[in-house]
């Protein structure tokens, strides 16, 4: 079951966070929606190595959740969390309904034993970095104060991605305490920058705490999934 969930989770993060283009997002009430759902189907087929009821079901549920979000929910943090939470829940449910889907697929016998673990780790890492990026952007929901803290939006996003990757690696590597060192290092970075304005600093603190919380949640969830493999 956990192998099926790992493969479908990777398919999900690829379809939502790696291969989805802004054209698909902008036209999500039109052609982009169909393209996105086709992408969800294609990534599920590729990751699970099969065209099956499980793949069709996971695609259909993705369609229903996305349509409900687009039509019913405003773009807020809670709607983003609800959307991703429902997607993950649906993947777990499909995994429970079709526990042998991975074993029935093309890859189970053709790839090394450790592959599902690698899939789960890759999916968790992408989710920690990329899904976290959007969650934090929606959470702070204020544009960067240009030049106020001597840092551009691109730098902030890059550092955020790196810190989530580091926290994720620390937890998966069994040295979760290292994430405190990373947090301390970043706090040191703020105070050392004299030019930082109060709003800029406040924004950076909020974003960093959210970033750490997101990375820790993604890492522990991934660790739990790997433990089930």
């Amino acid at each position, binding site marked *: 079951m956990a192998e099926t969930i790992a493969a479908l989770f990777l398919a999900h993060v690829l379809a939502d966070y790696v291969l989805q*283009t*802004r*054209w698909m*997002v*902008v*036209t999500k*009430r*039109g*052609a*982009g929606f169909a393209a996105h759902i086709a992408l969800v189907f294609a990534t599920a087929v590729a990751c699970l190595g099969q065209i099956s009821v499980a793949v069709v079901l996971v695609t259909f549920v993705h369609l229903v959740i996305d349509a409900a979000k687009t039509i019913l929910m405003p*773009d807020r943090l809670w709607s983003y969390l609800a959307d991703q939470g429902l997607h993950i829940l649906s993947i777990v449910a499909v995994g429970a309904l079709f526990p042998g889907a991975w074993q029935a697929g093309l890859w189970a016998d053709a790839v090394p034993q450790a592959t599902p673990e690698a899939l789960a780790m890759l999916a968790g890492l992408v989710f920690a970095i990329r899904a976290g*990026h*959007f969650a*934090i*952007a*929606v959470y*702070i*929901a*204020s*544009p*960067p104060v*240009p030049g106020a803290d001597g840092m*551009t*939006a*691109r*730098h902030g*996003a890059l550092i955020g991605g790196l810190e989530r990757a580091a926290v994720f690696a620390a937890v998966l590597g069994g040295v979760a305490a290292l994430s405190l060192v990373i947090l301390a290092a970043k706090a040191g970075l703020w105070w050392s920058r004299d030019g930082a304005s109060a*709003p800029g600093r*406040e*924004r950076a603190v*909020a974003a960093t705490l959210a970033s750490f919380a997101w990375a820790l949640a993604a890492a522990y969830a991934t660790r739990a999934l790997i433990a089930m493999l």
Partner: protein
Amino acid sequence: MSQTPEMMEGAPLIRPSSTGHPLYDTVVEACRSVYDPEIPVNIFDLGLVYTIDIADDNAVTVIMTLTAPGCPVAGEMPGWVADAIEPLEGVKHVDVELTWDPPWGMDMMSDEARLELGFM
């Protein structure tokens, strides 16, 4: 964490542009030359440019948004817009500000953009 000052009730969500200024049309055309590399419609027709304010001394302030917070071009788009407007004859100084208020929506696209993106 909003730093938006209190607005008077009834004040428009989007500040009006200096449509009567002689430079307005050329600044709009310059905005129409800027594209998000993943979207085949320029940022002006996409409705990302909220306000083009041109002062009497020809200093231009553009207030714009992006399709979503977290858009990966957030760090670059204001620079692209400034680079498009700055060389225009008569323009003195360009300032591009990002805002998420009000958030961009598909209803902000021009009819041409809708047509191009297959909505009409």
